[in-house]
């Protein structure tokens, strides 16, 4: 390994693989670019779509405020989640107990969020089923550096399992409802930056 050109070629080939910029991916990136301005611009409250949770979807207590114990009692959360503004405990289809925590960057927003969940039956408000349907309907394409592309959406081997799908949908649903309530209370989207994460086991918590 001393030849200059050979080293350049090796370095170029060593670049980690990235997601192929399919037309669908480019469309989503453009949508994000357009939507990002709205995230930074105060807007009026959006209309909320309220649909009851489907039967059989297990959700448990909604907990709010500081010092809430983790669902399993053994979860090790990062510093950002030690005093969360929103804690939502739920159960995966497999029966595994999970917990979602949300901490807003802005302290005042966090206080509003705590008041929101203290006066809201979050389990009844979130629409996990609709979010699952949204995830399943979402086009998803994988690709590689050779120009190959393939479907990675619902029904393919690449689509998340039932538990992971449910976990993702809960995160979407909870943050969606909280965001809409904050909007309704006049909290500007620019003040709604937050960190959120869920965990269902010690191993997953320690990976964060």
């Amino acid at each position, binding site marked *: 390994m001393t030849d200059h050109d050979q080293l350049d070629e090796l370095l170029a080939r*060593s670049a980690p693989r990235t997601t192929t910029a399919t037309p669908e991916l480019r469309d989503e990136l453009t949508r994000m670019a357009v939507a990002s301005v709205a995230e930074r611009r105060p807007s009026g409250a959006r209309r909320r779509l309220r649909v009851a949770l489907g039967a059989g979807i297990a959700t448990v207590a909604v907990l709010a405020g500081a010092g809430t114990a983790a669902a399993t009692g053994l979860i090790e959360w990062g510093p950002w989640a030690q005093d969360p503004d929103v804690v939502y405990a739920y159960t995966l289809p497999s029966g595994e107990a999970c917990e979602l925590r949300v901490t807003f960057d802005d302290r005042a927003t966090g206080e509003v969020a705590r008041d929101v969940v203290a006066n809201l039956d979050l389990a009844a408000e979130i629409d996990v089923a609709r979010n699952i349907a949204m995830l399943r309907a979402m086009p998803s394409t994988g690709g590689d550096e050779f120009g190959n592309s393939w479907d990675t959406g619902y029904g393919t081997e690449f689509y998340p399992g039932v538990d992971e799908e449910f976990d993702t949908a809960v995160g979407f649903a909870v943050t969606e409802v909280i965001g809409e309530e904050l909007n309704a209370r006049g909290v500007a989207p620019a003040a709604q930056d937050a960190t959120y994460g869920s965990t269902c086991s010690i191993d997953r918590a320690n990976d964060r």
Partner: protein
Amino acid sequence: MTADARETRVTEALAANAPDLLAYFERRVAHDDAADLLAEVMLTVWRRVDGLPADPVRARMWLFVTARNVLANAERGERRRWRLANRLRMMMLGSAAAPAASDPGEAAEVRDAIARLSPELAELIRLVHWEGFTLVEAGELMGIPASTARGRYQRAKQELREALAATASASAG
């Protein structure tokens, strides 16, 4: 410039550079974090919108400097999830299972050798050979003079030649 014209200019710059910015993050962080870091760049840009150059080439450089800062913050702090990135995050699921490179072992050896360089040398190599920046541009992104970038680049290449030669010798032996 009117507010609408400014929004259009920023949106176009973001959309035009988003694929490369996403790839930049994918090469440096866990696959599922890249979407959120891209979203953070987009949101950061609107906070500093007056600094975005009008020239498309300069705007690209400015966006990558922002991306470097966002990445540095992420490496110091916690993972952040942005609602803006929810759909993109889902779309990227599955791509991690894509077929491996033609010689993944060789690529891994080279990446490992790059990672053993000092951080500033390694990033210079990545910016030039993975992101396609010129040496002058890479130096600018890293906040160092072109002459310094050239010196570091030569040193990085020499260290890589030696490291990869040693690896090849060990494999042959």
